[in-house]
């Protein structure tokens, strides 16, 4: 029978029951690989449930450092009878299936093209431990021990991690180490270890990974740190998966880093609001009053905040919103990842609104873009929405260390203080003195006689006096559009890479691919998979909306452009068509909206299919872009 082979290149998936303590054991497994210096990307695929439903943890190991999902499972560890049938079916031919054989496997579940490894986890733990809770918890550690033998994990690294985790609790350390050893011993005694898929420190790991001491962190924690470093002082929020940990982490770091040295009091405020409406209202109030304020939410929260996003857009109040996207409304699928709020966020609210969006693709970018969001919101006096997603926000990502330049100065934008007001020849809140669409604002309390004005939605003139005149309205919203143009050069620019050389291209079409956020990593991988097949594809990673003019140029320079994203309706494609006046036939959607993050294989397959169908061979359009 075929055996899947590979050093530092495989996918392991764990099938567990939610709420049985598997998360920390699975994390121990992934972190051990990380500490061995081998690129690893773990992903939680979890239900909206506290206990009882099936939950999975997928760990990708990639010597080249691909952190997106590859697709397929090489080794499945199944300790959940509920999902066993589908788990067995999901293993690649020649792959491996590790399961609890305390009860024999039903014969109809057997496959003859994969390798079964039965280990009596339950029986071993029942024999070893008398306390039911330990029987359940340590079963997870036993399978990690078995994997250590099967995949050749450095046992010392595992022990070191347990020491770190349970520092000072010797009893816990020794019981966990004992469980690891039980699993390890069983595997070495009963199977030929290691398997043809295995780990090797150093080995074939890409040099750029080995050279940098990486960190393992999730995007939500990184965004929270960005808010700390970016000087946020007011966080108002309402709990919603998968954004909750942004504010939780902010509060944890703030408790440590934001206490006034003299008084021991807080230089920050965190308020758990009654709903997302109030959360955004508080952020608007604080931003209007000169504090750096932010909130974090997900889809339904964005809907509720939309009214205030409209007000903040028209009233020109700095606001930072971190949107950790998920799959739609209600409960259930919302614990799954998507990039499906693109249009809802870009045009959030009533009237003619366009919101500034940032698209981070890594924890490092979550950190940097959050800092940047505060600067941009004050510079542009408008909401800045950072579009993360569940996959980026809640999963651990290997990342180069976060960096900070101590020369950083906050950009507080155009704010006139008392002196500024005295020096100004003529001041009007909505007077475009500099021609960039951005006017000078004042803060309450700044000057005894000057600079006070009344903040409203849209009915006002340049001097902030109430007006329902059509001319005043038109001048104002046209200026807002001018401001949006100014934003193009201030927001993070798109990223391109040098084109991949292909010796014998199979197509004459100039191909391009556009993507953003968590679609980026698997897209780069798919492009590298397709190049040797004769399909050279240039790439551009979108990092912000409004789109930079380079995006128009990129589309113009290619005959066919794939837009790779994780939603049903090709929302980024629509936004590009709408904003850049691109003919629809030029942009082909590559989509995944299953709720589990898009894989490199899936992207490559869709592109192959698209290139091999007649529709892709249409005469290239050249004349459509202005």
């Amino acid at each position, binding site marked *: 029978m075929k055996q899947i082979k590979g050093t530092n290149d495989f996918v392991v998936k764990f099938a567990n029951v939610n709420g049985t303590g598997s998360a920390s054991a699975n994390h121990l497994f992934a972190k051990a690989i990380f500490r061995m210096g081998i690129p690893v990307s773990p992903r939680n695929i979890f239900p909206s449930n506290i206990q009882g439903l099936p939950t999975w943890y997928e760990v990708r190991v990639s010597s080249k450092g691909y952190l997106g999902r590859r697709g397929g499972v090489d080794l499945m560890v199944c300790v959940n009878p509920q999902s066993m049938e589908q788990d067995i079916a999901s293993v690649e031919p020649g792959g491996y299936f590790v399961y609890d054989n305390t009860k024999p496997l039903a014969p109809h579940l057997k496959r003859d093209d994969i390798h079964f490894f039965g280990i009596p986890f339950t029986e071993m733990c029942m024999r070893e431990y008398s306390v039911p809770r330990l029987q359940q918890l340590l079963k997870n550690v036993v399978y990690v021990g078995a994997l250590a033998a099967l995949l050749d994990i450095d046992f010392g690294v595992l022990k070191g991690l347990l020491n770190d985790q349970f520092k000072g609790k010797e009893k816990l350390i020794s019981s966990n180490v004992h469980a690891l050893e039980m699993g390890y011993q069983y595997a070495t005694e009963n199977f030929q270890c290691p398997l043809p898929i295995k780990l090797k420190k150093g080995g074939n790991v890409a040099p750029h990974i080995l050279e940098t001491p990486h960190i393992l962190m999730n995007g939500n924690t990184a965004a929270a740190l960005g808010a700390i470093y970016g*000087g946020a*002082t007011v966080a*108002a929020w309402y709990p919603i998966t998968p954004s909750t940990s942004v504010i939780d982490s902010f509060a944890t770091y703030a408790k440590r880093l934001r206490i006034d040295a003299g008084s021991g*009091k807080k230089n920050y405020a965190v308020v758990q609001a009654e709903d997302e409406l109030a959360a955004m209202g508080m952020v608007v109030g604080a931003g*209007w009053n*000169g504090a750096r304020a932010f909130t974090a939410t997900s889809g339904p929260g964005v809907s509720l905040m939309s*009214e205030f996003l409209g007000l903040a857009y028209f009233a020109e109040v700095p606001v930072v919103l971190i949107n950790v996207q998920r799959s739609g409304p209600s409960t259930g699928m919302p614990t799954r990842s998507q990039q499906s709020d693109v249009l809802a966020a870009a045009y959030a609210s009533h009237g003619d609104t366009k919101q500034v969006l940032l698209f981070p693709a890594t924890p490092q970018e979550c950190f940097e873009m959050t800092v940047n969001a505060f600067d941009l919101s004050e510079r542009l006096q408008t909401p800045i929405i950072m579009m993360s997603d569940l996959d980026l926000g809640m999963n651990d990502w290997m990342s180069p260390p976060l960096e900070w330049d101590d020369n950083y100065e906050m950009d507080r934008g155009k704010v006139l203080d008392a002196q500024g007001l005295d020096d100004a020849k003529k001041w009007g809140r909505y007077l475009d003195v500099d021609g960039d669409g951005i006017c000078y604002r004042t803060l309450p309390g700044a000057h005894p006689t000057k600079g006070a004005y009344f903040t409203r939605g849209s009915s006002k003139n340049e001097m902030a006096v109430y007006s329902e005149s059509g001319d005043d309205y038109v001048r104002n919203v046209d200026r807002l559009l001018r401001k949006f143009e100014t934003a193009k050069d201030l927001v993070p620019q798109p990223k391109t890479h040098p084109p991949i050389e292909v010796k014998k291209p199979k197509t004459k079409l100039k191909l391009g691919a556009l993507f953003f956020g968590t679609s980026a990593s698997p897209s780069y991988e798919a492009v590298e998979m397709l190049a040797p097949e004769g399909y050279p594809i240039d790439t551009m990673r979108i990092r912000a909306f409004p789109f930079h003019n380079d995006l128009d140029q990129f589309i113009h320079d290619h005959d066919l452009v794939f837009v790779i994203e994780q939603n049903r309706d090709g929302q980024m494609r629509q936004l590009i068509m709408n904003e850049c006046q691109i003919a629809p036939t030029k942009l082909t959607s590559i989509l995944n909206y299953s709720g589990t993050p898009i894989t490199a294989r899936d992207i490559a397959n869709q592109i192959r299919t698209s290139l091999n169908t007649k529709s892709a061979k249409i005469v290239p359009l050249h004349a459509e872009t202005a």
Partner: protein
Amino acid sequence: MSYIKPKFRHPRLPTNNLGYTIADYDGAISTLCAGCGHDSISASIRNACFKSSLHPHRIAKISGIGCSSKMPTYFLSRSHGFNSVHGRMPSVATGASLANRDLTYVGVSGDGDTASIGMGQFIHLMRRNVNMTYIVANNGCYGLTKGQDSATADLGSISKYGDVNGFDGIDLASLAILQGASFVARSFSGDKEQLEPLIRAAMAHNGFAFIDVVSPCVTFNNHNGSTKSYAETRDHLDAMPVDFVPMRDEIRTQYAEGTSQSVTLHDGSVIHLRKAVSGLATNDRQSALNTIKSNEDKARILTGLLFLDPDTQNLSTSLELATRPLNELGKDELCPGSKVLKSINEGLR
């Protein structure tokens, strides 16, 4: 409405302790209907700020949407104002107060803005005890959309179109007492003798101060059969006269024993209630609720200070905020720097 505001001011207008004249507290000309109760409230707010010698620019005015919420334009032009979103003024005020705890916040709302669309935020504002004065101009109807009943319209009150309201009205003052508001009062827009000192006391109070002001709508709710018309309100008023004595003023007035009650505020100011109301102890929520109810049963509208807890903790104190306003903090206080980030990186390996 008038559309010309006379610019003439008497050259020897009296000044307050800070040297401001009453004109320094004026706002733009009102665009509300002539005779609207709300304009009297605006005047009382202006007078209260003048008499209490507050710097106009150190006050921030925040409102929701509706006739009531237009009011902040019509007083204190030297203060920043924010006409926000319908029913959401509480959250905007909360955020503003977190950003700068040193300003005085005046929220102006209406019965639609507070008792219907904004009920959730109103309750939570009280729960958090945000340090602000919250005035509801309560006329029992929606004015800007032409006279629909609001949630504070009394059972049996007849609308301008002849419909009888079949629902119990929400009593915002009772609700505020029940929800833990630390200062609750009721007044009548036409009774500036009472309203002004109440507003002054509310602004001196170190926490959430709520004043429900019955303010008749001359256009849509001032007819026979309406329970919130001028005539009906005047007929059924049971007003408790109030004096406000700021901390710095010597108390000269003498009150006959047993006829009055005094409460000292956090900043040392004193409120005198010049008439004892049978059964009302303003430091006891239950007694306040009972007194409101027994008056209501007799079709009387009890106005005056209903409940006060002067030693309350406001939001900034309960969140343990540093004394320096958050909006004044800069990079040095807020940004931990590269060394700290290095150690955070270490912890993530």
